């Protein structure tokens, strides 16, 4: 204990451990519980069986009641702790229940049964991480279909975003042409026009293009993001023009310069944009909500939302699917955590 305190009490430099430090750790500790607690609770709950989920007050860890197959009975029987008349406690299976009377059978000796009052029995509970919700959910919820849609949208939208925006950024940063500044200002000023403001006409355009209920309607429109153009252009401005000139002298075409010089040099900015794009597309809600109304085209967020409306009480499956939905982005974050946080701090984007 003293070593733990000593470890926590150590500070960098010569400063003493002050009251403010204690307060800081206290705040951050409570903060950690508040930030992570809800997610942990979701994960714990997703392993609980239906009967465990409706229990009030709920238990922190998932428990389940084991059952045994006893010869002579068709179905597996639930296990209970039975307080026998002589005071001993014995683990027995519940064979039948009529009113307040329960017929218990000893799994070791299936021929003898004991009749007891139900007050004398208590269900055996062992901690178990039940994957049942996941397997049932994946089957009933068409998780595979929604996952495939989400992955397809995220992957192709990100590729398209990177390509289209880096091309535009290259054109806007490395050439002089009539209307260049006008185009740049036009693109960047639409940063102020969020989707909710143009909801109705966007729906018309999508319908007219024929992309209603088509994943292309989710992938293409949002790929020309002003944020992407802005971010990449600012980065490409720092690449010296002399590099392009010497490539031109060597006979490289403009496309080759873009592909083999600019893109490799802009990798850090492209990586930041790629991460943002994955985040945006994976979590996107309002746009796919409008474009997609056929169930087989739903992305995960849309599917989760429709599922909660349809079966308001099917929490068991819903919780498991929610965990599966947050899993990929969590894995990405775990690996690229430092990169993402510094990326946001320097660009100020989300």
């Amino acid at each position, binding site marked *: 204990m003293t070593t733990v305190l000593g470890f926590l009490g150590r500070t960098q430099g010569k400063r003493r451990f002050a009251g403010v430090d204690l307060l800081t750790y206290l705040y951050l500790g409570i903060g950690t519980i508040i930030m992570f607690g809800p997610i942990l*609770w979701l994960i714990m709950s997703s392993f609980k069986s239906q009967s465990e989920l409706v229990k009030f007050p709920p238990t922190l860890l998932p428990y389940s009641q084991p059952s045994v197959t006893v010869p002579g009975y068709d179905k597996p029987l639930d296990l209970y702790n039975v307080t026998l008349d002589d005071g001993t406690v014995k683990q027995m299976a519940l064979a039948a229940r009529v009113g307040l009377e329960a017929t218990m059978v000893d799994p070791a000796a299936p021929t003898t049964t004991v009749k007891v009052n139900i007050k004398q029995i208590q269900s055996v509970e062992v901690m178990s991480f039940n994957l049942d919700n996941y397997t049932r959910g994946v089957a009933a919820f068409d998780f595979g279909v929604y996952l495939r849609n989400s992955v397809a949208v995220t992957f192709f939208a990100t590729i398209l975003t990177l390509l289209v925006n880096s091309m535009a950024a290259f054109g806007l940063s490395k050439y002089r042409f009539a209307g260049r500044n006008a185009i740049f200002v036009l693109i960047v000023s639409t940063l102020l026009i969020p989707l909710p403001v143009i909801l109705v006409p966007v729906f018309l355009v999508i319908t007219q293009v024929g992309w209603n209920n088509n994943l292309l309607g989710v992938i293409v429109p949002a790929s020309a993001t002003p944020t992407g153009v802005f971010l990449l252009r600012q980065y490409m401005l720092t690449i010296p023009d002399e590099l392009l000139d010497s490539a031109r002298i060597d006979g490289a075409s403009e496309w080759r310069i873009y592909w083999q010089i600019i893109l490799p040099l802009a990798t850090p900015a492209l990586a930041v944009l790629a991460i943002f794009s994955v985040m945006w597309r994976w979590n996107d809600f309002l746009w796919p909500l409008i474009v997609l109304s056929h169930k087989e085209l739903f992305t995960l967020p849309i599917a989760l939302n429709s599922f909660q409306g349809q079966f308001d009480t099917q929490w068991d499956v819903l919780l498991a699917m929610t965990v599966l939905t947050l899993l990929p982005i969590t894995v990405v974050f775990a690996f690229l955590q430092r990169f993402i946080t510094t990326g946001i701090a320097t660009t100020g984007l989300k």
Partner: protein
Amino acid sequence: MTSETRKLPGQARKGIDGAVNSIASLADIVLEPLQRRFGVQKMAYFFVLPNLIIFGIFILLPMILNFYYAFTAGIHLLPQDRPFVGAQNFQTLFACTNFANPNTCNQDIFWRAVWNTISFVFFQVIGMIGFSLITALALNRRIRARGFFRSVFFYPVLLSPVVIGLIWKWILQRDGVLNSIVVALGGSQLPFLLNADWARAWITLISIWAQMGFFTLILLAGLQAIPSELYEAGQIDGANSWSSFRFITLPMLAPTMLVVTVLVIIRAVQVFDQPFVLTGGGPGTATVYMVQYIYSTGFDPTTPQYGLAAAASIVLGAALLILTLVQLRLGRATEL
């Protein structure tokens, strides 16, 4: 054996690189003649074109069409089927004897949504700035596991609003874990999502929970940009920790705080998905916000009122425009 396995990924990677590169050089078969025909500088148009086409069709065109919708009526989506009605949609929206009392308005839900949004923005901004600033200050201290704590506070930012809505719906429901804590402490179950005030409070708190990590990061970057010489000079002059916070940190952080505040407001005005999942606008209309009004008016499955929705979205757009202009104005003022 080991050399074999070590070689394989490299080869595979080279293969993918090669494939991508050969596709890319295919583009040059078309582009090189173009370049010879139009010259190097004109190639810029080619590079900008794909972006401009997508941008023009899906952002610029809708922006213009939005005005057309706002001044036409009917349930038809196609512009040619919609009769021109002048400012009627706006008149309907603003038909109100007393704007503070939505019951006296023709579109009472719109005005409820407006007032809900205003109160949401007000409380959310205060909470968001407060918690983000405290967290950033805590993370800016010389503490252990700083990276860990920073990630903890940031993590919810990455989650989908639908996931966030579901997590909290599960926690806040009548027989949920929070109510079990309340009961364990001797209270009785509280109607967290079924009472208007509770629901509003939770939506505000959850949105702070979900987004504060993002603003904390920006404020933290602002704090770290303050030169440490200032604090050293302050110490020599006998400043205690409060006065160095009050006279060094706060003034130096003011520009960042301003940007963050406006960013928080602009985002809060557009609140939609997380309350939509959590409460669906309820109980009653207690948590209907402006974007949800636009969505449910324009995309009602039986009688979509596109004109009214477009008019409402222009009101929302105007509010956002004003806020942005304020931001630019303030930004310029602080630069001087």
